[in-house]
């Protein structure tokens, strides 16, 4: 229920701003220019300008301009965006060389997957080693710690110079953006493995390499998996900067192109699609986790759960009642006395 509401609430706000004419709608869409020279039918002008020109026209005895209030073009109503979700896929690109939307999306997903997979191939084992052995932590972490502060997009020009203008520099930027975080986050997760489990394994005869593969990795794997889900989300944010490097490509190219054509409904739809793909991907991974980690109990959604409701202690209510008059029960009176004597004392029923 709340899950539905979490989407319905922002959508409702969007719909209200879009459809209720007296909320925002800062422009006037001119339907009849009247006596104003530079007004044209279909033009959007600022409300204040429209009012001024209308007043001028009235003063001059000219025909009054006509129009109705609208939101700016870049603020598209829900129905237009909803329609664009479908039409953006069916509309052929303006130029034959341009990709269709599904091609753009496919390109983006490919880029992100290659970047993320390349990063994980190195990042996950290195993170596990850093978390397990002091030697690797000392050897790697200071440098990784330094490197992760260097913003990945800063390497854009360098990546293009080295790797050319196609997909390679984009994948490299996603790699740089993900890898260094990945090492640190996973090392940290591995360090949280319960030391008692390792001690237990040692008393059962586990040693060295097997301690790592049979105890440390399985003990941390569910949390590493969760880390990876979060890191994949970060990779999407790097995607957008990566795609402007070299020749613009993928979904970013599509968004830019559509904005240039002033098809803002398509822009919203494309941005929405990134969200939908991300969410769907995450939900699929979450479901997959329940299949591959059957021992994992459901994760806690919130620190405080509603059934742990705090109810005011009865004595507090009784103090209130007895303070109205002396006719209350003896224990209540004594509680009231206590409060009267020492102010904020702890009143508890005997």
């Amino acid at each position: 229920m709340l899950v539905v509401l979490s989407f319905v609430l922002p959508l409702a706000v969007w719909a209200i701003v879009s459809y209720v004419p007296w909320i925002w709608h800062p422009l006037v869409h001119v339907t009849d220019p009247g006596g104003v020279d530079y007004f044209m039918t279909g033009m959007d002008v600022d409300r204040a300008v429209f009012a001024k020109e209308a007043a001028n026209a009235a003063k001059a005895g000219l025909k009054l301009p006509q129009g109705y209030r609208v939101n700016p073009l870049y603020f598209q109503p829900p129905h237009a965006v909803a329609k664009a979700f479908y039409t953006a896929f069916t509309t052929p690109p303006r130029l034959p060389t341009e990709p269709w939307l599904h091609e753009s999306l496919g390109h983006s997903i490919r880029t992100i997957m290659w970047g993320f997979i390349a990063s994980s191939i190195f990042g996950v084992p290195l993170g596990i080693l850093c978390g397990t052995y002091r030697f690797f932590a000392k050897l790697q972490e200071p440098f990784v710690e330094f490197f992760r502060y260097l913003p990945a997009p800063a390497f854009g020009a360098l990546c293009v110079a080295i790797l050319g203008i196609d997909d390679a520099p984009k994948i490299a930027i996603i790699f740089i953006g993900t890898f260094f975080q990945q090492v640190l986050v996973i090392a940290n997760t591995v360090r949280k493995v319960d030391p008692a489990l390792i001690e237990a394994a040692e008393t059962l005869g586990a040693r060295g390499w097997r301690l790592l593969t049979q105890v440390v990795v399985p003990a941390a794997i569910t949390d590493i998996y969760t880390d990876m889900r979060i890191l994949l989300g970060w990779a999407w944010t790097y995607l957008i900067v990566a795609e402007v490097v070299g020749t613009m490509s993928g979904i970013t190219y599509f968004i830019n192109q559509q904005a240039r054509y002033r098809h803002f409904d398509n822009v919203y739809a494309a941005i929405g699609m990134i969200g939908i793909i991300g969410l769907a991907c995450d939900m699929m991974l979450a479901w997959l986790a329940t299949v591959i980690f059957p021992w994992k109990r459901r994760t806690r959604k919130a620190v405080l759960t509603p059934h742990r409701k705090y109810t005011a202690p009865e004595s507090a209510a009784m103090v209130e009642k007895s303070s109205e008059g002396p006719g209350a029960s003896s224990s209540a009176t004594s509680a009231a006395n206590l409060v009267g004597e020492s102010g904020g004392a702890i009143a508890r029923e005997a």
Partner: protein
Amino acid sequence: MSFAPLKLPDYHEQSPEVAARFRRIRERPVVLKVRDLHKTFGANGSGHIAFEKMSLDVHRREFICIIGPSGCGKSTFIRIVAGLEDASGGEILIDGHPVSGPGPDRGMVFQGYTLFPWRTVKHNVMFGLEMRGKDSSTADVEARQWLDMVGLGKFENAYPHELSGGMKQRVAIARALANEPRILLMDEPFGALDALTRCKMQSYLMQIWKKVEVTVLFITHDLEEACYLADRIVVMGVNPGRVLEVIENPMPRPRSTEQLLSPEFLALKHRLDELIHGPAGTEEEKLPVIKLTEAGDEVE
């Protein structure tokens, strides 16, 4: 109100059967020999003393309880024997061979279960067998036997989080025993369980110990638990951690819960109480008198 204390026998008094049993135990070979073991925390042995030099011979199939208040170093002692911590000096011999570092010859059961959550109950028991290089079909068969012995054969495919605390601890015992250790080290294994479950677990442990060729070193701070389980009880004191007395338990075996009302039991418990909490009649530490509540009738 005053009351006359019960006339209790001396805890040194042993019935002929019990005395004969202790003679037999002393004749058995020594499994664990601890010589002048001591531990000091901090650099160069300058810091806090965990426990002073202590020596102990544990004979084959003997059940030893170490009892003492918190901070007496009993947990540190057993962890050193297990090889999980280093001693500051002294030596530990298993069957006459010095040991260092943890090993499967000293099985350990911890207070906090420490089952591997990603393995089913059966695979938990199989862990040690796999580490010792047994092939999986042999390990499988053996693990089932151990689980049947602790009465959890039905739960072999359950995951640890599906079990109650007592059941988890039985799996942990089966897992430690599956390695056929020379000595089973138990560090307050029932400390996290509720009183009823703890009683049951003590009885299970007695039954298991009867069936399995194993020597037990058991840490507890529960006097009755020590009296009920142990052959000998090592009583430790604090500041600094040291052995106060090693008591031969005068209660005959097999033991039952009815014996917890016998004079031998009361005498033993009384003595342990004296050793740990000081002689009877010692002033209790009084809390400062601060009154926050007022009630019609005073709580005595």
